[in-house]
C-alpha cells in the first residue's frame, strides 16, 4: 500500500512550473499542506518576535542603556508578547494538530477542509494586520506606530485619550480576526476527532495526541470567544464612543481585566495541552514502552482543562479583591497542580524500566519534564495570594511564565519538530546538529530564565526600559542577556538543521522510529489522500499489532 503511494506522489510532483506549485499551495484545502503552512508561518513570526526579545534584552543589558527609546521599548515588549502567543505558539500547535490528527485517527482529511483553509488565511491576515501597524498605526494623529499597551492592553491605556492614532486598533482587529480563525480551526479539530475516526478507533483507543487536541479544541472554543467579545467591546469604546471600559462614565477598568484573563489563563493551558500531547507520543516511543496510565492521562487532562476555567483572577490578586475571591482563586490554582503532577508521574512511569534511546526528541522531552516541573512550582508560589502581592509585576513573574512557555511548551515543540520531521519531509534530520541545538538551548535557557528570577525577588519591575545601577541587578541582567544570545544561536542551529536536512538528509522511510501510531504506516511524506484504503484498528497501538501479529495489543484490551 505505502510503496504504491510513494510512486504516485513522485509522479505528481515532477515537472510543474513554480507558478503551478504556488497556486497549488495557496488554493489548497489539504490538511497536511495547511499544517505545513501554519508551521512555516509560525517560524517566520518566531524569528520576528525573537528579534524583538533580543532588542528588549540588549536594552536591559546594562543600567542607563539607550539602545532604544522608552517608546520603542514599550512597542517591543507589546509586540513580542502578542506575536509569540497569537502568531507563533497557537499557529504552530494548530499546524501540528492539522497535520497529525487526521493521520493518527485514520482519516483522509479534516471534517471541514475549506473551513480549515479559511481559518488559516484568517490567522495569516491577523498577523499581517498586527505588523502593518508599524506603517499604518500613525493614523492621522501622527502619534504612536506599533501597539505599545502591553499584551494585556489594560484599560484605560487603550482609551482614545492614552492611545491616539490607530495602533491599539490594529492590535484589536488583528486579535479579533485571528481569534475567528482559531475558533474555526478548533471547531474543525473537535469535529474531525469526533466524526472522522477510522473503524475500530473508539475514543478509548485514540492516540493520546488526539485526545489532548480534542480537549485543547474545546478549550479554544470556550477561551478565545470571551477575548473576541472583549475586543468587540473595546472597538465599540474606541469607534462608537461606548463606555464599557471608560471609568469617566461609570465604566470599569477591572471588567476588562476579568474579561482578558478569562481568556488569558485558559489560553496557557490551550498552549500547554498540545505540548503534553507531543510528550505523550514521543516518550513512549523512545522508552520502548506503551504510555503508562492512559485513562488517567485523559482524565487528568480533562481535569486540567476544567480547572483552568476557574483560576483566571490569580492574575489579579493585586487589584484588591475580597478575601473570599482571593482564597477561591488561590485554591483552584493549587488544585491544578494535582492533575499536572499525575501527568508528570505518568511520563516518568512510562520511562521507568524502559529501554531509553536518547535521540534529540527524547532529550527535549526530558528537558521539558524537569523545566515544566520547576515552572509549575513557581506557579504555585505565585498562586499564593500574599506571596503574589509581593512579587506581582516583577521579573519573577516574567521568569515564571517564560519557564512555562519556553522551558515547557517550546522544548516540547522542538521535540515534536525533530520527531515528525522525517514524516513531514521524508528526510532524517542531522542528529549531531540536533544534539548541539539541544545543549546550546538548555544552557542559554537556564542562563536566561533561572537568573531572571533573582532580580525579580530583588524588586526589579517588569516593563521598565532601564534601571539605576547598584541595586544588585546589573550583573544578573548582563548574564540574562548573554543567555538570550545563546538561545538565539541555538535557534539558528535548529533552522540550519531543518534546511540542510531537507536537501541533504538521509531518506527516512515510512517508520524511522519503529513507532506505533497510524501516521507511521504511510509513506513519508504521506500521499495527498493519506490512506489508500481506510485502516481498521483493534488496539491503541495499531502498528505494534501489525508488526507483532504473534502478540498483538488487541489481545489484552
Amino acid at each position: 500500500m505505502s510503496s504504491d503511494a510513494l510512486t504516485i506522489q513522485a509522479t505528481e510532483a515532477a515537472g510543474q512550473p513554480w507558478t503551478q506549485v504556488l497556486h497549488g499551495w495557496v488554493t489548497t484545502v489539504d490538511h497536511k499542506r495547511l499544517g505545513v503552512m501554519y508551521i512555516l508561518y509560525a517560524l517566520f513570526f518566531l524569528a520576528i518576535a525573537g528579534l524583538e526579545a533580543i532588542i528588549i534584552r540588549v536594552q536591559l543589558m546594562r543600567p542607563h542603556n539607550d539602545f532604544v527609546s522608552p517608546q520603542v521599548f514599550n512597542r517591543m515588549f507589546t509586540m513580542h508578547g502578542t506575536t509569540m502567543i497569537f502568531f507563533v505558539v497557537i499557529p504552530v500547535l494548530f499546524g501540528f494538530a492539522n497535520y497529525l490528527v487526521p493521520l493518527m485517527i485514520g482519516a483522509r482529511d479534516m471534517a471541514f477542509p475549506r473551513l480549515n483553509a479559511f481559518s488559516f488565511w484568517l490567522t495569516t491576515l491577523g498577523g499581517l494586520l498586527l505588523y502593518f501597524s508599524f506603517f499604518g498605526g500613525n493614523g492621522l494623529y501622527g502619534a504612536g506606530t506599533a501597539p505599545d499597551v502591553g499584551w494585556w492592553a489594560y484599560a484605560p491605556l487603550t482609551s482614545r485619550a492614552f492611545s491616539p492614532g490607530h495602533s491599539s486598533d490594529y492590535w484589536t482587529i488583528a486579535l479579533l480576526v485571528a481569534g475567528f480563525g482559531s475558533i474555526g480551526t478548533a471547531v474543525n479539530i473537535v469535529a474531525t476527532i469526533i466524526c472522522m475516526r477510522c473503524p475500530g478507533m473508539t475514543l478509548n483507543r485514540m492516540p493520546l495526541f488526539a485526545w489532548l487536541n480534542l480537549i485543547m479544541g474545546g478549550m479554544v472554543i470556550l477561551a478565545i470567544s470571551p477575548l473576541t467579545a472583549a475586543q468587540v467591546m473595546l472597538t465599540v469604546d474606541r469607534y462608537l464612543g461606548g463606555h464599557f471600559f471608560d471609568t469617566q462614565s461609570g465604566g470599569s477598568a477591572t471588567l476588562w481585566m476579568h474579561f482578558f484573563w478569562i481568556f488569558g489563563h485558559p489560553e496557557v493551558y490551550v498552549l500547554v495541552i498540545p505540548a503534553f500531547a507531543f510528550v505523550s507520543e514521543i516518550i513512549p516511543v523512545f522508552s520502548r514502552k506503551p504510555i503508562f496510565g492512559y485513562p488517567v492521562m485523559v482524565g487528568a487532562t480533562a481535569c486540567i482543562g476544567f480547572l483552568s476555567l476557574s483560576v483566571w483572577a490569580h492574575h489579579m490578586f493585586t487589584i484588591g479583591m475580597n478575601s473570599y475571591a482571593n482564597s477561591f482563586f488561590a485554591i483552584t490554582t493549587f488544585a491544578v497542580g494535582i492533575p499536572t503532577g499525575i501527568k508528570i508521574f505518568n511520563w516518568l512511569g512510562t520511562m521507568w524500566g524502559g529501554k531509553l534511546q536518547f535521540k534529540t526528541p527524547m532529550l527535549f522531552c526530558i528537558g521539558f519534564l524537569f523545566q515544566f516541573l520547576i515552572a509549575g512550582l513557581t506557579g504555585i508560589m505565585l498562586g499564593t495570594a500574599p506571596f503574589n502581592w509581593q512579587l506581582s509585576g516583577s521579573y519573577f513573574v516574567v521568569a515564571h511564565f517564560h519557564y512555562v512557555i519556553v522551558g515547557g511548551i517550546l522544548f516540547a515543540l522542538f521535540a515534536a519538530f525533530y520527531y515528525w520531521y522525517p514524516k513531514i519531509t521524508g528526510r532524517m534530520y542531522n542528529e549531531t546538529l540536533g544534539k548541539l541545538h539541544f545543549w546550546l538551548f538548555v544552557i542559554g535557557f537556564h542562563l536566561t530564565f533561572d537568573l531572571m528570577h533573582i532580580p525579580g525577588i530583588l524588586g526589579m519591575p517588569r516593563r521598565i526600559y532601564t534601571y539605576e545601577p547598584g541595586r544588585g541587578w546589573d550583573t544578573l541582567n548582563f548574564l540574562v542577556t548573554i543567555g538570550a544570545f545563546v538561545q538565539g544561536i541555538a535557534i539558528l542551529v535548529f533552522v540550519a538543521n531543518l534546511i540542510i536536512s531537507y536537501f541533504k538528509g538521509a531518506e527516512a522511510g515510512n517508520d524511522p522510529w519503529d513507532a506505533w501510531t497510524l501516521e507511521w504506516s504511510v509513506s513519508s511524506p504521506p500521499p495527498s489522500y493519506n490512506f489508500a484504503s481506510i485502516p481498521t484498528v483493534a488496539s491503541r497501538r495499531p502498528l505494534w499489532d501489525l508488526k507483532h501479529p504473534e502478540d498483538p495489543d488487541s489481545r489484552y484490551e
Partner: protein
Amino acid sequence: MSAIATPLPETHGAWKLPYRGKVGMACLIFAESAIFTIFVVAYLFYIGKSLTGPTPRQVLETPIFYTICLLSSSLTIHIASRFLERGRRGAFLLSWLLTITLGALFLYGTGQEWHRLIYEHGLTISTNLFGTTYYSLVGLHASHVIAGLTMLSIVLLFGLAGRVGPEQAGRVNVLSMYWHFVDVVWIVVFTVVYVIGR
C-alpha cells in the same frame, strides 16, 4: 498495553459516528454562547451604574409581540425540516417562508424600537452605560438574526429553484440548530434586558 484490560467487542460491522455538520454547529454554538455570556455579564454588571439618563425604566417597552414572532419561528422551522425529511417540498417551502417572515418581523421590531429610542429619547450607544450595553447586546443578537435570515433565504432560493430535497435534510437540520440557538439566546437577552434590567 496499560494496566487495565477492557474487553471490547471486536466486531465493527456497523461503524457509525456522529454527523460532522451537527458536531461542528454544536461547537460553533458553544463558542457563540461564550461570546454572549461575556456581553450578558457586562450588561448585568452595569445595570444601574449609568451616571446620566435615560434609564431602562424610563424608555424601554417590552416587545411582547415580536418576541412571540421570533419564538414561534423556532416551531415553524422545526415543522419545515420535518416536512423536508418526509419529502413534502411544497409544505417545506411554505413553512420555511413563514419562518423567514417571522424572523424578519422580529428584526423590524428591533429596528422600530431603536428608532424610537434614538429619535424620541435621544439614547445612542455613546449616551451612557445603559446605551452602550443595551445596543451592544441587542445588536449582537440582531446581527445573529440577520446572519440566520441570510442563510435561511439562501436555502429558500435553492428551494424555489427546486434544488432542496430530502437528501439535504441533514444540512437543513444543522441550519435549524443555529436558528434555535438564536431564539434561545433571545430568551436570555429578553430576561436580562426587559425583566432584570428594568
